[in-house]
């Protein structure tokens, strides 16, 4: 119908324009930027492979990648274990069940900026809540954000606290799909509660775990506001994240070409890591 074609084109035209301007153009232009030296003030100049060579040799970039892996090494297991434990606790008849779920979920809806500022207060060495609690237990003040060895783990704990409620809900949905008969069958075989969890529940929650790991990983590579507000990337650049470094290159150093190169590199690293994770979790299924 000609009228239908016309309506379809008309209704989708704004979206098409949007995609061209804010999706397809930036994707294409990101590759062009890699080849440019551009400070947004003077006209861009062709830089060849300078940006890529710089990237390969850039200690800060590699430090940021290492930092992200340190973050993930703590954040991923913590996220999975805490989310599973909380979801498992909630997956039963409970008093105030929706209250517990809502409590765990609360940090998820709060802006990352607000949560980060709240945690800057929790982590503050002298007036912070955590050191206040530790003092009651006669434990010395811990320099949470100023000790190079502790800062990134501290950020990982905070990120876990912020996001875990979301994964609790995802695991809860998964747990509700585990048929009761599976538990009964293995209990008749003489399995303990732990064995039932280990051999029935856990394997059946594989899709949820994959989702939790995937989303947490993407989150980890997007780390920005946390180091930006809490540590500025320090101490000793141990909390510098790729996005923070990219932001500085664009905003502070006016190096658009190099910032875009960082973005492209980050996108590739994310893709590779996600594919590897999928392989590992997938092969765990077969064994």
């Amino acid at each position, binding site marked *: 119908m000609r009228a239908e074609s016309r309506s379809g084109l008309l209704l989708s035209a704004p979206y098409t324009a949007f995609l061209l301007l*804010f999706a397809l153009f930036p994707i294409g232009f*990101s590759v062009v930027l890699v080849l440019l030296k551009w400070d947004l003030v003077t006209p861009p100049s062709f830089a060849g492979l300078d940006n890529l060579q710089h990237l390969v040799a850039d200690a800060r970039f590699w430090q940021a990648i290492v930092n992200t892996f340190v973050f993930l090494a703590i954040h991923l297991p913590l996220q999975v274990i805490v989310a599973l434990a909380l979801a498992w606790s909630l997956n039963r008849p409970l008093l105030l069940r929706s209250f517990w*779920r809502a409590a765990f979920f609360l940090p998820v*809806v709060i802006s990352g900026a607000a949560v980060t500022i709240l945690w800057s207060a929790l982590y503050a060495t002298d007036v912070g809540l955590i050191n206040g609690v530790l003092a009651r237990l006669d434990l010395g003040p811990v320099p949470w954000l100023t000790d190079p060895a502790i800062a990134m783990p501290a950020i990982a704990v905070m990120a876990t606290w912020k996001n875990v409620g979301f994964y609790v809900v995802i695991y809860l949905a998964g747990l509700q799909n585990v048929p009761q008969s599976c538990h009964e069958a293995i209990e008749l075989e003489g399995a303990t509660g732990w064995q039932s969890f280990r051999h029935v529940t856990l394997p059946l929650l594989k899709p949820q775990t994959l989702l939790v790991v995937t989303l947490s990983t993407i989150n980890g590579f997007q780390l920005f506001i946390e180091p930006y507000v809490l540590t500025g990337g320090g101490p000793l650049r141990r909390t510098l994240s790729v996005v923070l470094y990219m932001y500085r290159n664009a905003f502070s150093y006016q190096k658009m070409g190099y910032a875009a190169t960082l973005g492209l590199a980050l996108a590739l690293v*994310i893709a590779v890591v996600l594919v590897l994770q999928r392989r590992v979790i997938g092969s765990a299924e077969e064994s």
Partner: protein
Amino acid sequence: MRRAVFYVVLGLAAVAFLYPFLWMAATTFKSPAEVGGLSLIPDQPTLENYRLMWARAPFGRALINSLFVATTITVSVLVFGSAAAYALARLRFPGRGILNTVTVAVLLVPAQLTLIPTYTLIVELGWIDSYAALIAPYVFNAMAILILRQFFLQVPRSLMDSARLDGMGELRILFTVFWPLAKAPLATVGILTFMGAWNEVLWPLLVVRDEQLMTLPQLLTVFSLGGGAGPRQLAPKLAAAMVLVVPVVAAYTFLQRYFIESMASTGIKG
């Protein structure tokens, strides 16, 4: 007995999630001498921290900016997004297949890849320090279009046919037949979009430098970066954070079921 222990452990877990917020709220009413104490009830309650933060930075203006930006984006994503989703789901037109494919493909591209090119685009358009810079890149959302399209595909064809025989045009069919049926996905998209826009901080930090145009999370971030972490600075910062947190917590208290279901249903965070 085991049950009692279980509830105690669960209660401690909940305290770990709720107590920091309560402590934050309490701290904003404390005098510098009290800041850092664990108590939730200030000995000498004071509004000094709020006065300070309100005086030092335009938080009122930021609140209005944030409301305006998030509302505009949400309305646009719902109205124009559902029009696009409707066309993609129910109208045959040249290019529909490509548009559907691109919509899915765009979701697979990490935001970091497009951040800098989009920023240079905004600079070249001369949109730095404008509402346009804050709003334009978000007026459509591929995820929202997919959610709505998926729902629109399930509306029976006969309802559309019937509406056409009744003499309705496409826009009227969308808004008087499809929208009333799509309350749930529209609410999901609305909540996700508003939360995403309300909480966004990296993008405003890039494209807005004028304090008068800053969004709330942005101004809060900029504000908190100044000054040290001593008791005199800490409480006003937390007071500023309260301006950002309180509206969300209020909405969350009444609509928590929708918040949780919306966010979990898509497997995507706002």
